[in-house]
Each structure stands twice: as structure tokens, then as C-alpha cells.
């Protein structure tokens, strides 16, 4: 049956392209394949349209999750309880985490994959366009469900994004079922997205595009997609067990019924650790595309980059218990997970050194995408080092559940994943919109973000080392000064992101026309098509030498 569907799609694609001439989608929508109005978006099977949908969705979620962070930082601006109830504060920390991970970072990467993978490998579209449509349109429902749960009686999820039982079973609000089903929907969406990416990369490459000629972004996404298929179903299983424990009287995690709450942590982090690499591997691909462009040199050590990515992915399955050093693991397990965790810094180090070697003696210019990429390398490495500190089991007994951990994962996720997404947006914006963005405003955005993000997250290290626990609405008086600085940094960072929206909207509406290849040193098939990329590209596959 699916065979027929695929043929149908292929026929549709051929029909729609042979009937109509290639044209610019902005004026072209009327004369051309793209249907008008809401139907263009609701029924779209075009990888570029779906990519744009993903990216706009992710930007929206970034601001919703960001607004929650602003509430958190406002409450923590001074000691004592000022603005919100502790229960609402807990809902904010939980929803902020869930929305940023599943609503902002992951859809942004899927959006970039949708837009760029077919252009990078010379394919006319994704391999499974209808599934592509479906996997996007599940997301608004998933997040509506999650956000609506905040307005139910008793409130939304308040047990932290890691939803450890019994907080998420015995002591959770009545809306927990809504949380569980929204996570199910997010999981289904990511799995379908990942299947699409793998099938596309394995089957739709242009003739001559061998695996080892694929751009790094394609490689990192291929490996990420395999990770997604391996772990998202495990997350779905974990939330299902929470659901049946809470509502149907099972005892997977309930000691009174013969279960074990620590088992939950094992299952969750078996998903959770590969998940954090899902959120960083595509970043590595983006940085590996941008650094060579603006250093005007080939990427140093392409093969080692591919192997390092694969090693990180494989090792990610052997380190999960470093999140649970303090649950009372036996010594042997603590040592095993400590050494495996430290081992991951080797392939990661290979990548950092390769980027630095690419920069070495390059003719470097500092356009906005390059600025974000350079900041990524430095700040992600800081996050990596604090990760190494946390990996040391005895030290982790002090750092566990403190702001040091918060500082660590915000360095790798905000100045890592989010900065790379910003870099990617600036890098490919001319290709998407056909116009150059406002370079001046982009640079303002970069410098404001860079300064404020460090005011925001760097002092958190000190708070953590001094013993301030995470996920609390109030704190001891000695933490007051640093929290004030952190909150000011937070508000600055939040406001700076409005500049990004301004740059993007201005670039969509007009500006200086962008050539097919707006960056002098750029390489790759995506720069061989005009800017903006026509609605249909590579109907006849390009030749790759």
C-alpha cells in the first residue's frame, strides 16, 4: 500500500513540475505549484514549505519557553517569594525545559533538515513527503495539549522535565495524562521526521554523491536520526509506564507494589543521554559548514569528523547513569560510567581541534553566521569542560542538583545548540528569502546575545559551587547578589532575541537581492540553485563530480 502511495506522490510531483515553470515562490505562488492561502501550508508536501513551518513553529516555542524563563528569573531576582506561587514556579521550570527541548531546539533542527538536506544532496524533495506533512502538523497539537494543561485545575506538569516518580505519579497534578499524551505526540512526530531523514539520505542522493562526499550537516543528521529512532520510543515507553502507574494501578516505579523508582531513572536516562546528543550533533554539522566558508579553507579532517560523530553516537548509550551518581550506585557502576563519560570528550575534542585547524591560516572574515560559529566553539567548549567536572563521580556528589548543573547544560544547549541554530539561520537566510539580511542589526543581535548570555549563565557556576540547589523558587540570602546579576543577564538575553525576529522579518519582506551564492567561500549544491530557492529544485538530479 505504501508503495502505491509513494508512486502517487512521485507522479504528483512530476505532474506539478512539468505543468508549471519554475519561478520565484514569492511572486510565483499564483502561477505555480504552491496552492494559495492556508491550504498551501496545511496540505503541504513541499520540503521547503514544511521546513519553514518547522522553523516558525520553533521560533514561536523559543519565545513561549523564553517567557517562562523570564518568569523564573523574575522570581529569583531577589530572595523570598514575590511574584508566583511555588507550585506555579515548578510548572514554569518544567514547561520551560520541555518546550525548549522538544518545541524549540528539536523542531528547529528538523526544519533545517527539511530545508537543506534535499538541497545539499541534490534531491527534489524528501523521500516521504506526506509523512513529512503529518510529522509537522502533529506538533501544534502536542504543544497545545501541554500548554493547555497549565490552565487546568491543579495546574500543569510541576515535576521537572525529567518527571521522576513519585513526583510524576503519586504527587502529580490531575493534568498528568495531558502531559503524557503530549510527549507521545512529540515522540511520534520526531520518529517520523527521523525516518524521513534516513530514507531520504539513503535513497535520494544525486548520482556521484557518495556517502563520504556528503556535507557534514547531512552526516550528522543521518546519525542523529538513528539516535532518535533508538531512543524516542524508549521515552514513549517511560511516559506510558508513568501513565499506567498513576491511573491504572500498575507498580512499575512504586516500591509498595514491588516496583522501583530508581528503575525509572535508568529508563529515562537511557533515552535522556542520547537525547542531549540529538540536540548537539546537528549543531556540529552546521558549524562544520560555516567555519570552512568564512575561513575560505576546506574542512580539516572530514573523515575524522564523520568517525567522531559516529563514536559520540555509540558512546552516548553507555553513559546514562552519570545523571544518577547519587542514587546509590555500586562503586563498579560509578567507575564505569565515569570513565565512559570522560571517553566522550575524546571524539568531541577531535571535532574542536578540527574546527580550530580549519581556522588556522584561513582568510577569515567575520560575518554574522561566522561570529555565532566562533562563539559556539568557545562557549560550547566551556560547557564541555564543566561537563567533564560533573563526570568525576566524587565531585558530582557536590555538584549534583545545583546551579552548576544548570550552568553546564545551558552552556551546551543555549550557547551550543541555540547559537548554532542562529548561525544556521543567518547563513541560509539569503537562500530561503532571496534577500540579504541587515548585517548591522545582525551584529547587534550577536554582540548583545554574547554579552548577556555570559552574564546570565557564567555566574551560575559560582552559585552552584556555593551550594544553591536548582528548581527552587526561593534561596538563602548569601546567593542574592549573584542571582540579581544572573536575572539581569537573563532579561538582556531575552530582549536581545527580539532583534533576531526583527532581522528575520525584515529579510523575509525585502532588502538587498541575494545572489545564488551570497558567501564567497561557500561550497555545496545548495548554492548552485538561485536565491530564493525555487519551489521545486533538482527535478533532474545534478551531477556530482
Amino acid at each position: 500500500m505504501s508503495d502505491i502511495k509513494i508512486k502517487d506522490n512521485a507522479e504528483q510531483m512530476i505532474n506539478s513540475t512539468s505543468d508549471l515553470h519554475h519561478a520565484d515562490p514569492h511572486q510565483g505562488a499564483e502561477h505555480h505549484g504552491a496552492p494559495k492561502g492556508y491550504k498551501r501550508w496545511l496540505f503541504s508536501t513541499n520540503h521547503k514549505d514544511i521546513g519553514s513551518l518547522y522553523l516558525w513553529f520553533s521560533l514561536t516555542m523559543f519565545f513561549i519557553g523564553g517567557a517562562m524563563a523570564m518568569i523564573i528569573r523574575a522570581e529569583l531576582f531577589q530572595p523570598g517569594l514575590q511574584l508566583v506561587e511555588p507550585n506555579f514556579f515548578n510548572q514554569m521550570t518544567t514547561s520551560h525545559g520541555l518546550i525548549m527541548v522538544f518545541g524549540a531546539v528539536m523542531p528547529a533542527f528538523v526544519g533545517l533538515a527539511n530545508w537543506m538536506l534535499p538541497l545539499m544532496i541534490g534531491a527534489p524533495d524528501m523521500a516521504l513527503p506526506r509523512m513529512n506533512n503529518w510529522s509537522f502538523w502533529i506538533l501544534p497539537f502536542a504543544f497545545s495539549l501541554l500548554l493547555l494543561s497549565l490552565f487546568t485545575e491543579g495546574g500543569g506538569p510541576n515535576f521537572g522535565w525529567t518527571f521522576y516518580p513519585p513526583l510524576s505519579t503519586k504527587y502529580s497534578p490531575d493534568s498528568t495524562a495531558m502531559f503524557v499524551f503530549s510527549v507521545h505526540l512529540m515522540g511520534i512526530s520526531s520518529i517520523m521526521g527521523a525516518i524521513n531523514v534516513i530514507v531520504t539520505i539513503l535513497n535520494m542522493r544525486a548520482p556521484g554523491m557518495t556517502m563520504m562526499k556528503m556535507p557534514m550537516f547531512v552526516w550528522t543528521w543521518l546519525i542523529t536520526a538513528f539516535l532518535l529512532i533508538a531512543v524516542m520510543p524508549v521515552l514513549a515507553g517511560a511516559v506510558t509506564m508513568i501513565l499506567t502507574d498513576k491511573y491504572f494501578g500498575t507498580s512499575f516505579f512504586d516500591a509498595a507494589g514491588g516496583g522501583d523508582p530508581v528503575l525509572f531513572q535508568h529508563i529515562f536516562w537511557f533515552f535522556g543521554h542520547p537525547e542531549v546528543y540529538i540536540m548537539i550533533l546537528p549543531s556540529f554539522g552546521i558549524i562544520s559548514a560555516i567555519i570552512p566558508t568564512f575561513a575560505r579553507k576546506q574542512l580539516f579532517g572530514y573523515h575524522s569528523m564523520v568517525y567522531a560523530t559516529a563514536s559520540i553516537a555509540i558512546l552516548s548509550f553507555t553513559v546514562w547513569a552519570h545523571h544518577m551518581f547519587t542514587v546509590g550506585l555500586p562503586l563498579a557502576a560509578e567507575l564505569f560510567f565515569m570513565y565512559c563519560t570522560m571517553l566522550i570528550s575524546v571524539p568531541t575534542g577531535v571535532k574542536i581541534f578540527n574546527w580550530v585547524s580549519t581556522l588556522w591560516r584561513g582568510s577569515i572574515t567575520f560575518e554574522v553566521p561566522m561570529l555565532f560559529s566562533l562563539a559556539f566553539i568557545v562557549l560550547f567548549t566551556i560547557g564541555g569542560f564543566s561537563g567533564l567536572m560533573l563526570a568525576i563521580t566524587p565531585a558530582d556528589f557536590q555538584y549534583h542538583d545545583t546551579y552548576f548543573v544548570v550552568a553546564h547544560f545551558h552552556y551546551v544547549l543555549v550557547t551550543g545548540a541555540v547559537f548554532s541554530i542562529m548561525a544556521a539561520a543567518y547563513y541560509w537566510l539569503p537562500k530561503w528569502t532571496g534577500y540579504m539580511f541587515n548585517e548591522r542589526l545582525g551584529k547587534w543581535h550577536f554582540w548583545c546575545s554574547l554579552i548577556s548570555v555570559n552574564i546570565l549563565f557564567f555566574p551560575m557556576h559560582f552559585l552552584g559551587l556555593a551550594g544553591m540547589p536548582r528548581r527552587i523558587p526561593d534561596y538563602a540570602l548569601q546567593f542574592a547578589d549573584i542571582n540579581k546579576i544572573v536575572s539581569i543577564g537573563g532579561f538582556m538575553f531575552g530582549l536581545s532575541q527580539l532583534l533576531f525576529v526583527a532581522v528575520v522579518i525584515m529579510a523575509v519582506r525585502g532588502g538587498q537581492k541575494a545572489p545564488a551564492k551570497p558567501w564567497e567561500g561557500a561550497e555545496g549544491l545548495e548554492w548552485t540553485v538561485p536565491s530564493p530557492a525555487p519551489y521545486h529544485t533538482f527535478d533532474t538530479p545534478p551531477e556530482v563530480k
Partner: protein
Amino acid sequence: MTAPKIKKHLRLLIFSAVGMFGFGFALVPLYDVFCDITGLNGKDYSRESSVPMTTVDESRTVKVEFVTYLNKQLPWQFKPEINSIELHPGERYQVSFMAVNQSDQDTFGRAVPSISPGYGAQYLVKTECFCFQEQMLAANEEATMPLIFYIDPNIPADISTLTLAYTLFKNEPNADLAMNQKK
């Protein structure tokens, strides 16, 4: 494009995703099996084993401490008759725990044992324990609950103290049956 290959890959990947969903649930029994084989986790695996002891190692003593916790929902009092005892490995000992139901309703309870340090758990062998069964106390009833155990003489020399902690949970009358079937 290569439609049959796409179809094949699609089927394989959907199959893997469904398989990994199953694997998530398989982790539940695998976790117990893994802890059972390696003796990790401080779980009490001596349950219901009653191998008779012959030798008593008089050369050393091990201190056994008794700790009790009550789950909030259970309106009982629950205490050991002594807080700790020094024993020779191999020596059989009986200790009683007193339980009082302080409510006006019949209540069911179940004691879940935990032994620390975890790697010492397998050397504390219970031959009779109230924790093997569900306990029922009528309204305001008092009961003495016996525990008979010995310490395996193979216990490593570096363990000088074992702490046996019982947490008493409220049980629904039929939950025990369901649990036994699950095991």
C-alpha cells in the same frame, strides 16, 4: 526514485521504532535480572531461602541495626524491640517488631526490606519474616511480628555493620495477590 528500496527502508525503520518501544518495557524485567545476577542494588534476594546453617564463626561479630520507616498513609506504629544486636556470623537470631494499628479501621500493610551496604545484602539470610506476607491489623489491634535470620559466614571481612531497614506501606487487600502473580 527507487521506490521499492524506499518502501523497504521505511518498513525496517518503523519496525525498529516499534521494537525500541518494546525494549523500553523489556528494561523492567532486565533490570531485575541484572541486579539479581550481579547482586547490586541492595535488594533483598535472600527472601524465602532457608538453607540450614551448620558452622558459626566465633572469631568475629557483625553488628545488625534495625530501622523502621512508616509510609505516611498508614496509621500504624511500627518499632523493633531492639535497635541493634552484635552477632557471630552463622548464629541464628530472632527479633520481634511491634506494630499497633492506631486507627478505627482494619488496615493492610506490607513491609519492604532494604539492606545497606548494598553488597552486604546477600549475606543477611532470613529464614522467617513477616515481610514475606501481607499483614492485617484490625482496628486498634496490636501485634508482635517475628523475624528469624542469620548472617552468612562468607560475609566479607570489611563489613562490620549491616543495617536492615523496613518501610511499611499501606496495602490494598488484593494488591498482594496481583504482586505474587507478577513475580
